[in-house]
C-alpha cells in the first residue's frame, strides 16, 4: 500500500506544476515592504495599501458581517504592516503569508473582544510574529509537493477532500477513515477512487 501511495503522489507532483494558478507578485510586495522598512516610504506603503486593503476588507466583511469592524481590521492590519515592516524577513517566508498572519491575528483579537469581552490580545501568543520559519527536520516530507497538491485538492467535492486529506496527509488507513468519518469502508474506498480519478483529470495525468 505504502509503495502505491508514494508512486501515486509522485505522479501527482510530476504534473502539478503546470496547473498552478498565476502566482502573486511577491517581488513587488517585498520591494514595497523593504522601502517602508528602510526609508518609511509613503508611496510604497500606498501601493501596499491598495493591493491588500480591498482584499482584507472583503475577507473581514464575510468573517465579521459588520462594516465598522471590517474597516477596523483593515486599519489595524495596515497599521501593523507600517509599524513592523522592518520585522519582515524574506528568508523566512512569503510577504503574503506575513501580512495574512497579521490580518488573522487582528481579526482573532477583535472577535474575542466581541465574544468574550476580553482585551487580552492573545493572538500574538498563539501565533507569534517572530517565529515563522520552518523547521527542517523531516527529510521525507516534501512541503512544496504538499502545498501544490493542496491547491488542487481544494477543487474536489467536500466529501472527497476529506478522504484524500485523511489518506494522504494524515496517513490514516481506509479502516481508520471509515471509523473516523462514521462511514462504511466501502464508501470510503469508492470516494477515494472517485477522488483519484478526478484528481488525475485536474492534474492532467494520462493513463499510464
Amino acid at each position, binding site marked *: 500500500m505504502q509503495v502505491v501511495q508514494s508512486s501515486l503522489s509522485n505522479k501527482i507532483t510530476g504534473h502539478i506544476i503546470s496547473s498552478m*494558478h498565476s*502566482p*502573486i*507578485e511577491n517581488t513587488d510586495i517585498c520591494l514595497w515592504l523593504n522601502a517602508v522598512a528602510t526609508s*518609511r516610504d509613503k508611496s510604497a*506603503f*500606498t501601493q501596499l*495599501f*491598495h493591493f491588500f*486593503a*480591498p*482584499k482584507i*476588507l*472583503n475577507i473581514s*466583511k464575510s468573517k465579521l458581517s459588520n*462594516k465598522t469592524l471590517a*474597516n477596523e481590521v483593515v486599519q489595524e492590519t495596515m*497599521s501593523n504592516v*507600517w*509599524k*513592523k515592516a*522592518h520585522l519582515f524577513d524574506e528568508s523566512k*517566508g*512569503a510577504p*503574503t*503569508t506575513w*501580512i*495574512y*498572519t497579521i490580518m*488573522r*491575528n487582528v*481579526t*482573532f483579537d477583535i*472577535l*474575542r473582544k466581541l*465574544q*468574550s*469581552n*476580553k482585551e*487580552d*490580545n*492573545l*493572538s500574538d*501568543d*498563539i*501565533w*507569534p510574529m517572530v517565529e*515563522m520559519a520552518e*523547521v527542517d*527536520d*523531516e527529510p521525507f*516530507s516534501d*512541503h512544496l509537493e*504538499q*502545498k501544490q497538491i*493542496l*491547491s488542487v485538492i481544494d477543487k474536489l467535492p467536500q466529501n472527497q477532500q476529506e478522504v484524500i486529506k485523511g489518506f494522504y*496527509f*494524515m496517513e490514516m488507513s481506509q479502516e481508520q477513515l471509515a471509523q*473516523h468519518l462514521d462511514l462504511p469502508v466501502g464508501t470510503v474506498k469508492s470516494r477515494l477512487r472517485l477522488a483519484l480519478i478526478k484528481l488525475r483529470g485536474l492534474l492532467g495525468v494520462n493513463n499510464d
Partner: protein
Amino acid sequence: MINHHPKIELLIQYVNGELPASISAGIKIHADLCPKCNNQIIELTKHAAETSFAQEDTLVGIGSEVLSLKGDEPEYNFDAQSMINNITDMPAETELKVDDTPVSITLRGVEYELPNVMKHMSLGKPAQIGKLSRSRILLDEGHIHSSLLRIEAGGSIPEHTHNGYEITLLLEGSFKDDMGEYVAGDFIVLDGKHQHQPMSELGCLCYTVVSDSLHFTQGINKLLNPIGSFIY
C-alpha cells in the same frame, strides 16, 4: 513519542483563526512539541495566504463597496487617503518586545513551568479533590471551560464519558487509559463516543478544554458528580 495529533480540519480552522482561544492555545502547545504538525501549519498558512490574496479579478462585484481594481485606485467604503495618512504618521515599532520570563504554577508544592502561549492568561485559585488539583484558566468562553489539571502519582479519574468534547494536552508526565499510554505533547480529543478512565502512575499535568460536564458511567461513581463539575 507523540502519537496523538489534531486532525487536519482542526489545523485548517486554527490557521484561519476560527477556533476559540482555548483550543487554539492547545494546538499551539502541541505544535511547539511536534515538528510535523508545526510544518503542516506553516504550509497551511502559506496556502491560506495565497488563497486569500490571490491576484484574481473575482473581486469585482463581490462586495458592494469594493469595486476592485478597475481603475488605478480601488474604491472603499471609507476615506482611504486619510486612513493612509493616519497610518503613515505613526512611528515604527523599533523594539521587539519578546518577554522570555517563564510563567509557572505551583500545585500541591510542585512547581510547573507553563507553555509560553499561557503567558497572558490568568489562572484561578487552585482547588483540590483527592489526588486531583485544578486551576481554571480564565478565558471567559461561555460553556467552554479550560483548566490546568494535575493528577498526583497513583491518581485517576473515574470512568466517564462526555456530552460535548474534551481536549487534553499532556504538558508533563504521562497517563494511560484503556486506549493506551500518553506522553507530553499528545493532543487527545474525546467525545460522547468514548469512555475512559485515565490514571497516572507517576503523576502528570494536563491542559484541558471541556465543552460540557462529564458523565460518570459506573454505578458508584455516579455519586462523583462533584468531580464531574470539578473537572469541567
